[in-house]
């Protein structure tokens, strides 16, 4: 299974906080995961997840570019951070 989390503006725009996806061949890497989410949920998700400044994290580490996934991984999508 892959646990997928959405935070802040992205969470609100998708109206979704968390998805649990059963592990499968269409989840081998981040780009494949994004592709599947867009196919399943349609144009609105494609637009939100395609935003240029979106940040992706795998197992709570920010990654840049595509990254391989394994069963049990945790993936998160969020906007640039604004703490402090």
């Amino acid at each position: 299974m892959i646990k997928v989390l959405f935070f802040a503006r992205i969470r609100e725009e998708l109206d979704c906080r968390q998805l649990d996806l059963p592990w499968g061949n269409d989840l081998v890497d981040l780009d494949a995961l994004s592709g599947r989410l867009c196919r399943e949920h349609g144009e609105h998700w494609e637009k939100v997840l395609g935003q240029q400044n979106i940040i992706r994290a795998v197992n709570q580490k920010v990654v840049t570019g595509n990254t391989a996934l394994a069963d049990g991984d945790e993936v998160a999508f969020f906007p640039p951070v604004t703490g402090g």
Partner: protein
Amino acid sequence: MSLSVKVQEADFDPAELQRSLLAGGQAEGAVVTFTGYVRASNEQRTIERMELEHYPGMTENSILAILQQAAERWGVLAASVVHRVGVLRTGDQIVWVGVAAAHREAAFSACEFTMDYLKTRAPFWKKEVGPQGDHWVEHRAQDTERAQRWGRSSE
């Protein structure tokens, strides 16, 4: 060396935090602290309240990683971060960073470095609520530039 990170809804007492920072020993010559407060306005928007969201687990780990970097780089003796989440109002305390070191140069640099990285790497998001409605605060490009001053070693 003592490093501490807390993410909490509750308010905090800077005096107590400074005392805890020094509890380890007497080698410290300098303590620098930063306290952040909710401002009454931001870019001309009136702020009634602020809602702070975070990524539990990742937040604490990423801040601890920042403190470890600061401690190694400047020979910090103790450092502590408290960051609030949930609903906050104008004038409320949001964040406290305290650093103890033998000399002031190290304490100032480590404290400012930690704040710059909290602003650019720790997964917190602020939403302002005011008379004009809700507004997710935008990341300031200026914050990324400030963080980059400290060099690539901090990536």
